[in-house]
């Protein structure tokens, strides 16, 4: 198999040619700073070949007609990253204690921590933002036919990500442990129990027993903080890899261009 050449660098990123008049070895502080940065990157790149992978990902070709709808997927990932970062900061204060510690820790974050109300608000509203973006992205993919061969596996991974996002919303809802959180989660677990045959066992698995008990809140917290983010991050990685490998599709209204040989030359 002949090795394909690396994708070309776009013009602004090629190293600029040396300016005339400064070529006699005199370098100013700006040039030295740039050289230092380039040296560090070169050191890492020589040992990892990461620049090839970065160019493959960032400078891949996209079809004619790519429009703003194609940003919805990246927007969803950005919302997820925002949730992850704000979630880490909230986790530094949260206590999963059903006997009052959970509510108290959230009250403390909201009222007394510097910017606590802001970070908590970002996490709370960010989850709604992420769900909205996920559905818009799913709709865009569907209406553009971007689920067809060879991208069926990517669609399936996307559906699994949708289910995991819904599960994140469900488990996270209980954590503030106020009245709305407790009753909404109880109702949600009871609805799970209405599935025939396996429903009651699924509800018991979520509760960690036959009804809400001392381990239920910790269970929801562990699922929300450890299990689901790990699965989502892994599947986002697979999802992005497939997008870069298979390429994106043109919008359905885009017509194919005429072959170069048949185009009339312009005089």
């Amino acid at each position, binding site marked *: 198999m002949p090795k394909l050449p690396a994708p070309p660098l776009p013009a602004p990123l090629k190293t600029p040619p040396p300016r005339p008049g400064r070529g006699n070895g005199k370098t100013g502080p700006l040039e030295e700073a740039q050289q230092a940065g380039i040296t560090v990157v070169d050191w890492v790149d020589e040992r990892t070949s990461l620049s090839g992978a970065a160019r493959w990902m960032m400078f891949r070709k996209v079809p004619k007609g790519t429009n703003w709808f194609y940003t919805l997927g990246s927007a969803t990932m950005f919302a997820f990253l925002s949730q992850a970062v704000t979630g880490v900061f909230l986790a530094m204060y949260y206590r999963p204690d*059903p*006997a*009052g510690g959970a509510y108290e820790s959230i009250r403390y974050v909201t009222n007394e921590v510097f910017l606590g109300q802001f970070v908590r608000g970002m996490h709370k509203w960010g989850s709604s933002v992420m769900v909205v973006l996920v559905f818009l992205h799913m709709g865009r993919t569907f209406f553009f036919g971007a689920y067809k061969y060879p991208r069926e596996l990517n669609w399936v991974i996307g559906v699994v990500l949708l289910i995991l996002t819904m599960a994140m919303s469900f488990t996270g809802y209980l954590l503030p442990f106020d009245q709305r959180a*407790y*009753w909404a989660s*109880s*109702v949600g*677990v*009871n*609805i799970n*129990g*209405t599935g*025939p*045959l396996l*429903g*009651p*066992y699924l*509800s*018991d*698995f979520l509760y*960690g*027993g*036959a*009804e*809400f*008990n*001392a*381990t239920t809140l910790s269970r929801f917290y562990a699922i929300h903080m450890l299990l689901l983010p790990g699965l989502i991050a892994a599947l986002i990685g697979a999802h992005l890899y497939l997008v870069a490998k298979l390429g994106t599709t043109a919008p359905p209204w885009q017509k194919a261009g005429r072959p170069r040989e048949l185009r009339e030359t312009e005089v």
Partner: protein
Amino acid sequence: MSKYTLDRGIPGAFEGETITRRRFMTGTAHGAGAVATMAFALPALGFAIGPVFKSTPHRWEVVGNIYEFPDNNYVPVVLTVQPNIGEVGKTTVYMRKFNPEIDTDPYDKNTPYIAISSRCAHVGCPVRWVDASERFICPCHGGVYDLLGRRVGGPPVRPLDRFYTRVTGENVEVGPRFSVNSQLRHFSPRLPGEPIDGIGQYLYPSTPGAKI
């Protein structure tokens, strides 16, 4: 197919060999990896799934004395069903003395007091006893139950759950929860939303942790 590798024509086989050295080594390495993985995966899985099968110990809790509860109206009491987790471990139970004129079903003959759960059988919101209309009303989705806890309106799928009761000396004690079908026959406790009439009792089994 012969069990001897020599007969199967595998290159490098010798007389009497039944498995090649390569396959043996590969199989042993896979087996050891499986044993190592199971060593941490099975306890973790047991930790996650185990509580589903653990049965809650039965508790009898004193809720009042035998003079407190009327036989034609309900009095709410607060029961601790899960100790040590504060408010969320408590539930409201509506207590009434057994009344042979009202409680005519054959299943409650030996029950000294009727204890009706406030957990709505639709999705679990707390219901409220309204004395003027002699109904339990659920605020969430409009479920309505009559004096015996049987559904008379709204989305619930079965009557309100009840609790076992007994009298010890002068005290009334309330015990574990149980569910009833529309004829008020007793069943192991089910979650809200699970019908018990007819095929429902088999389609929605009581899980090991809930069985009395």
